């Protein structure tokens, strides 16, 4: 069993990156959220990479296979880095759009959800047809307009 290449420095780096990233992630400005995502991403990439053994570059002929660093987490992280680039571009486009529409890049609270919160505070329910009140006061007497009344004036036959 080969030992991983992790050491105290790597653990501290992971912890600091993720911690700082999380506190940025909890902000409302999209720019800060994006920076938080990048920081957390870097921390997690380090976590994955340190899960494998450290060593020489994984190139056959340059390093003896027994001395090589683990190639699998490297391939995973390489993919992750490029995905993060695409994600960064996308979030930046969103913050640009948000600025374009509102003049800022803050993430507001969901209006629909707040409406439900207010409704709960007023002890109301949301369904219109169900659950509120029955069709008539006496549930046994359902008033059904007669077809003749319903279609009066349309020349019943």
């Amino acid at each position, binding site marked *: 069993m*080969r030992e991983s*290449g*992790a*050491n105290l*420095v790597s*653990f*501290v*780096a*992971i912890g*600091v990156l*993720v*911690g*700082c990233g999380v*506190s*940025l992630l*909890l902000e409302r400005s999209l*720019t800060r959220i994006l*920076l938080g995502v*990048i920081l957390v991403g870097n921390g997690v*990439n*380090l976590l994955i990479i340190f899960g494998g053994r450290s060593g020489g570059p*994984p190139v*056959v002929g340059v390093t003896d296979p027994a001395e*090589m660093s683990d*190639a*699998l987490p490297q*391939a995973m992280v390489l*993919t992750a*880095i*490029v*995905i993060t*680039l695409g994600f*960064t*571009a*996308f979030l930046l*486009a969103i913050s*640009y759009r948000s*600025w374009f*529409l509102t003049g*800022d890049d803050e993430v507001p*609270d*969901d209006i629909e*959800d707040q409406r*439900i*919160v207010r*409704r*709960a505070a007023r002890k109301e*329910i949301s*369904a219109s*047809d*169900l*659950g*509120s009140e029955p069709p008539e006061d006496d*549930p046994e007497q359902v008033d*059904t307009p*007669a*077809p*003749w009344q319903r*279609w009066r004036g349309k020349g019943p*036959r």
Partner: protein
Amino acid sequence: MLVLLILHLVAALVAPLLVRWWGPRACYPLALAPAAAFGWAVLRTPDVAQGGAVAETYPWISQLGLDLALRTTTLSWLLTLLVGGVGALVLVYSARYFPPDAAGMARYAGVMVGFAGAMLGLVFADDLLLLYVCWELTTVFSYLLIGHSTERRSARWAAAQALIVTTLGGLAMLVGFIMLGHHAGTYRWSELAERPLPGGPYLVVAVLLILLGALSKSALLPFTSWLPVAMAAPTPVSAYLHAAAMVKAGIYLLGLLAPMLAVVGPWRPVVLVAGLVTMVLGGWAALRQTDLKLLLAYGTVSQLGLLAVAVGVGTADAALAGVAMLLAHALFKSALFLVVGVIDHGAGTRDLRKLSGLWRDSPFLAGVAVLAAASMAGLPPLVGFVAKEAVFAAFTDRPLVLAVLVVGTVLTVAYSIRFVWGAFGARPGVAPTRLRRVALPMLVPPTVLAGAGLVAGTAAGALDNLLHPYAELFGTVDAHLALWPGLHLPLGLSGVTLVGGAVLFALRGPLAPALARVRSPVTGQQGYEWITHRFDRTAVDVTSVTQRGSLPQYLGLILVVLSTVPGGVLLVIRPWAHSIDLWSSPVQPVVLVVIAGGALLAVGARRRLTAMLLVGMTGYGTAMLFVLHGAPDLALTQFLVETVTIAIFVLVLRRLPERFSVRPLRSSRWIRRMIGLTVGLTVAGLAVAATSARQAPSISERFPSLAVEQGHGRNVVNVTLVDIRAWDTLGELAVLVVAATGVASLVFQQSRTGPRPRRLEADRGEPVAGRRVWLRGGATLRERNRSIVLEVVTRLIFHTAVLFSLYLLFSGHNAPGGGFAGGLVAGLALTMRYLAGGRYELAEAAPVGAGTVLGAGLALAVGGAVASLLAGGAALESVKVDLWLPVVGDFYLITSLFFDVGVYLVVIGLALDVLRSLGAEVDRNIEAAGRGAQGGLAVERRGGSR
């Protein structure tokens, strides 16, 4: 039988078309479908009369062992006659009941025929799961039919209530079916009936669940309430669904399973108690109704209770009486409903307080109603009398049940008289009611149904023969259906009920206060409302607590869970117990200081640019750690990505405010930092645990040898990307294409595929003499935005950079590099051209659409996978091809190179798309908005409000 079902399906599908052509008259041809079912059942009479069965089986879902197993025995034959016969008559009736311009007629006709088909499927089904499917189909169709008048709230409410109650029962029944089928090893009724069932509490639960379904469908207590409310449906619907067909489904299920399950513990107590209580309460409630239709509805509830008792008790005599009663009830109740429909249609009301002297006006209609009501009350020689005598006779050995049945029947007689009196009797002080001319198609169906009750009653002996095979499933049958049962107890009881009912009706005046007052303290309707109301309230409460709509709150909750649950586990297992190296290289702590410093300062930074640069610093530090770890490919990619990221950031940050807005709540900032601290500690602890947790050898042990032998490359990471784990990379490419498209669609207000911004023709003048042109697009920039140094440098290194990117692409298989790194270098080269020369320069540098590049890259990667499949290999398998060219000499080509070229193109496409969108298009917007400091729309809004 399948042909009949398909016929109904086809008829239901063409119904809207026919209605469009002929209006409600389209119901005449549509009535042929149920009529065909009736005719088929009549023709099959000889087969089932001797206790035989008609069976058809078609393979359906063989994986589940589910076949379209159809089977008709005596009980289902009887139901087929009713469903087909009453269905056809009701459709004929509907043709004139609805006015020619009635709204929703197309839906009504289609759904009505569809319902008839579903009901047929229900009674044909031999497989319990197939029965369930049809059962729920009838529920859905009944929902649509009850809610026919969509504009009326009461109809929508009634439809929803029927749907909710019966679906709830249906779901319980499904669970019961599955338990039963699992227990017995088969879902086929025909197989269940042949072998004895092993008992046990498991079976008891299954039986209770199935009973729940039957009780809810047949509106027995405690599920009664939906049926009276469902009278909001058009009267033909009530006559069909709520008298003859759908509510009988529960009774049918009881009758179907009683031969096997009546002996199981809770069956008899549940069925008897529910049935008897329903019968008495329903009859009592019917006596106080003033709406004729509601009177019939409560009468139906009451009779369904009687039917449940007779069919469900599980003795041979009662079963015979029960099916006879089933037939009788379907005939007289649908006839009465149709009569009410005629009155309602002709007089404009069905309130018995407003009707008076109708018997004088419409003696024929009154005769029909009296005939049907007499059958309901149990007068000889009608089938109602025959059935009721048989029921009494079957329960002579259970005096308590018999007594309640007699009480219930007294009520039945009383409300039968009340119905006739209410509909046709003369009332002092009320003007005589006149019916407008009643169309013949509306008179014929109730007449036929009421007449059928007379015929069946007089032909009781033949009926006895036909229904006997069903009763024989329970054992030896002593009883016989007969018009003259002999001078025994039942006949005496009949006399008692008739007299008692008449007396009860005569005392209606003195009894009125009691009728109004005595009702159950909690009605099912109140229970239903209370439950649905509580459900809605709970839903709102739960939503308001869990969905606050705040992104930081959601994320915070997730992160707190992350740091408490896995973090708590970490505290228990203490993975840091073993010794940990401080560092593997003295450079590492230095890099750590850079990373930690950058990250901590970034959290507190107030300016966007500062924060971004600090984060970029941590990125470069991470790349350094990759180098020290022995991952040159990663480090290269990380360096390049970090640089591209900074460039993109700068493009966007030029539009955003310079500083972050000040957060109003300072306390929340500390909460955020506390969460950040705990999550950071947790993840660090997880890293400690994860890196020391390896127990099995890594699967990548063999990667180096695999890379050389099968991937034909020496750079293990690159071979992993393009060969060993190529599917992952393919997925990633798709994500990149989507992200790039998303960026473009967020920024471009018009199509991005339009003409690219080439240099303005006016600018294409001859270069000023004596002045070198370094970049052709540079001249389009304003003087103060131009940097000649940048233009010169760009001019000098652009081609070198592109060449270098190609080198990285081609050498990547054997040395650090590859499609990702190469594509990023090329993207950086394009970024430089854009920064130095503006958007026209970008178009000069890359005169192709970003979408084209992205698509070509993805197509190349996928095409490589397809090509290797076509060549007979696995998808994305690499093959080494040895080639020879003059001058070059021997060389080889590895097919995975095409895949890597695809990667290269997609990355370039991403960079190009981002530059086009966040760079060039934003430039254009800035110029269009006259260099406004605010967002376009925001400026317009503020300008408008001024």
